[in-house]
């Protein structure tokens, strides 16, 4: 084999050239910017990271619609939606701090890895100053952690696990959506009035973090009513056929089945439970009941008629009567032809809340935004009076208990609102054991 010979003169020459090349540039990001991605031009870029492939793609599409609507309204296009009803009057329809709002979108694929890759490209490539969106808690926690490290604000989309503002809370992350504890706290009294205090519950739970927190919250709430917990069974996330988990339920002495499932799991387990005829059975002299703690419009749609009469909870519903909801439903419905989902509402509200916080802080600096959002009380975004709590960056607001509609008047009318549970009833101490172990840390502006 012939060997490669290094020519000494050539080496010196090329070495000098490389050295000169390296000496030229001296501009470093950090010196030029006060905080990461400080907007210097006439526009400010927001990053909307939603699932566009995989099982939650439709939910992601609805979130993206809401984001686009929010951007329009912030820039003064369209009818302004909830800006008109928002209690804070800082938003004028001239962008944020006078800068026109631009946005980039990406695909989380509902995988924490892909979601972080997408968020990183928004931060590194597109200069996004805020990331929002997402449709699962795993993704929310992962992206929230990333935003904390990178020094941008994260306004969570649909995430329901206690951990997002509990064990995994971060100073740069904010959640408007409600959580598993709140679902259970709101459902408790309704379950008591509907089904009494002498009930035995059987839990089927998706075997991952969200499922566990939902199960723990539901057990705590129902046992406080005097219900017994007959059994709790974990089901694989990938399961599509739940027959072997549902079959033993009837013979277990339980008279209520709690499905701590979401998404495709929930659609299939509920459909199959109804197929097993559980709803027509009598156990312990009582009608057998099914409870789905977390409802979503899209999943209700997927389960079709099977949801009739089944109780669950929601963050928001388009049939609410307040002014904020009405104007949002109007502008969303007129643009897209159907009413928004709760995922859309939370994403829309989060975008407005962020924009408003920047206006009030007078800066895009994440630390200023954090300060403006912490302890912020507002109204008019569809959920009534709401507080962004300082201690854990969780929004506290009314929670809806809903029931699958028995005779839907049209295809959009999926659930009936049973009760609007007042905020006081779902509020908990920041030190609550289900949320313990986390630490917000300090806000990070990337500087």
């Amino acid at each position, binding site marked *: 084999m012939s060997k490669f010979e290094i020519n000494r003169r050539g080496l010196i020459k090329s070495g000098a050239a490389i050295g000169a090349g390296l000496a030229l540039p001296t501009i470093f990001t950090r010196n030029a910017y006060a905080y990461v991605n400080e907007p210097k031009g006439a526009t400010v870029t927001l990053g909307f990271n939603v699932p566009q492939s995989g099982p939650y793609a439709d939910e992601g599409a609805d979130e993206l619609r809401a984001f686009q609507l929010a951007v329009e309204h912030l820039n003064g296009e369209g009818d302004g939606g909830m800006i008109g009803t928002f209690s804070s009057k800082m938003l004028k329809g001239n962008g944020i701090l006078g800068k026109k709002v631009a946005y980039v979108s990406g695909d989380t694929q509902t995988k924490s890895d892909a979601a972080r890759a997408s968020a990183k490209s928004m931060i590194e490539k597109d200069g996004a100053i805020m990331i929002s969106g997402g449709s*699962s808690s795993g993704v929310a926690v992962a992206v929230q952690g990333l935003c904390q490290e990178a020094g941008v604000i994260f306004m969570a989309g649909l995430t329901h696990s206690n951990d997002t503002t509990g064990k995994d809370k971060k100073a740069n992350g904010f959640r408007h959506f409600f959580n598993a504890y709140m679902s259970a706290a709101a459902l408790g009294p309704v379950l008591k009035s509907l089904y009494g205090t002498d009930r035995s519950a059987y839990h089927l739970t998706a075997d991952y973090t969200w499922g566990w927190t939902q199960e723990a919250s539901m057990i705590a709430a129902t046992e406080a009513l005097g219900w017994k917990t007959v059994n709790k069974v974990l089901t694989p*996330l990938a399961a599509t056929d739940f027959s072997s988990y549902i079959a033993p339920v009837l013979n277990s002495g339980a008279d209520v089945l709690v499905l701590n499932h979401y998404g495709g799991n929930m659609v299939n387990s509920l459909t199959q439970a109804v197929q097993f005829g559980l709803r027509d059975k009598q156990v312990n002299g009582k009608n057998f009941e099914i409870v789905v703690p977390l409802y979503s419009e899209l999943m209700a749609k997927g389960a079709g008629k099977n949801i009739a009469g089944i109780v669950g909870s929601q963050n928001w519903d388009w049939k609410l009567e307040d002014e904020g909801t009405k104007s949002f439903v109007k502008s969303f419905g007129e643009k897209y032809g159907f009413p928004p989902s709760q995922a859309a509402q939370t994403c829309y509200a989060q975008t407005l809340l962020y924009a408003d916080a920047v206006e009030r802080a007078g800066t895009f600096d994440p630390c200023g935004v954090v300060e403006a959002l912490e302890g912020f009380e507002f109204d008019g975004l569809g959920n009534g009076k709401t507080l962004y709590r300082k201690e854990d960056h969780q929004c506290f607001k009314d929670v809806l208990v809903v029931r699958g509609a028995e005779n839907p008047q049209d295809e959009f009318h999926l659930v009936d609102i049973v009760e609007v549970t007042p905020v006081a009833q779902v509020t908990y101490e920041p030190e609550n054991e289900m949320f313990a172990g986390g630490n917000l840390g300090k806000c990070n502006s990337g500087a």
Partner: protein
Amino acid sequence: MLGLSKKDTTFLVVVIFLTLMTPILLQPFPEGSVLAQFNAGYPDLMQRFAIYGIFAIGFNILFGLTGYLSFGHAAFLGVGSYSVVWMYKLLGYNVVPGLLLAVVTAGLFALLIGYISLRRSGIYFSILTLAFAQMSFNLAYSVLTPLTNGETGLQVYTDDPQILMGAGSPNSPHFFGIVMNESAKIDVGGWQFTFNNGYYFCAIIAIIVFYLSLRIFRSPFGIMLRAIKTNQTRMTYTGLNPRPYTLAAFVISGMYAGLAGGLLASMDPLAGAERMQWTASGEVVLMTILGGAGTLMGPILGAGFIKYFENIFSKINDDILHTWFAALPDGLEDAIVFMVHPFIGKGWSLTLGLLFMMVVIFLPGGLIEGGNRIWRLVTGRSRNRNTPGKDAQHHPKPTAHVN
């Protein structure tokens, strides 16, 4: 140099040059221009190119040389990531202990799985590896949550011990003080180039492991592996036991995967369970075949190709389309946007699927084959064996399958 033939040395130098110049080469369009959307020279994607390149190079040592198609390599990727994050949690943010552990644990894991799976060949082998990887994924997502943090992914918390962390240590992954997520940005004219520490860390490792794989391809060991692919029966008749060779190849490629997984966690301190799912195993298979199995550069090209589409195409939305075609008359603009719409944004996987089919239909032999065809067109002659066409040397001849 370095025990390589002159031709291979040139090849290696070209690879080194391309790797080091990536931040410039992937930024062909000036900032703010309409085409800037297609720039890929930002740290995260460049790191992914290098890391998945390493993954694919390693996979190719097994599949490209021996023909054993593993559908479970993602398990090693995941093990590597978890090792690194655990080292962050226990020791501190220096990546070195984690990466060493990642390679070792992935190697041991590969030894175990390989020892069992290699008792079978063909599709039976593929399914065995798939079964092991799927078991790892399912358990990591549920029962093993204390070890893996399940759905959320393993990450560092402020109350973790991190016993080697001093007061002045950087608070994110670093290599003896060189912080991975720090970059130098250089503006030249309208262009902006980002030189990221993490990317260069990955790039240097990628060059080293590329060199190693080059040596393996050229070594007697590599020839032995090719013999296994060509005709295992004949090899046995000559008195050679192929099993130790394939097992060695399996473990080596497992270690490459572990290293890649470790590097993923070195760039971004989080290890998600999805890294072990069969789709991730399938991805590296696709990368290798797409680029050209058995060629040295092919798998790296395949890795870059897939990651590029995943990260760049998924981010093009209708608004961006409208700005591109804004110059056209309104009706035409809408028509074009309507036509292009299904292939971008949320339709990125459709584009990728179509491209898979196109490549395999029109370029048997993968992207490398396409490169060779273009090269032949440019040089205007068909190359004979003795000229240094990359493929002619590295691609094992397709053999008639005996069955």
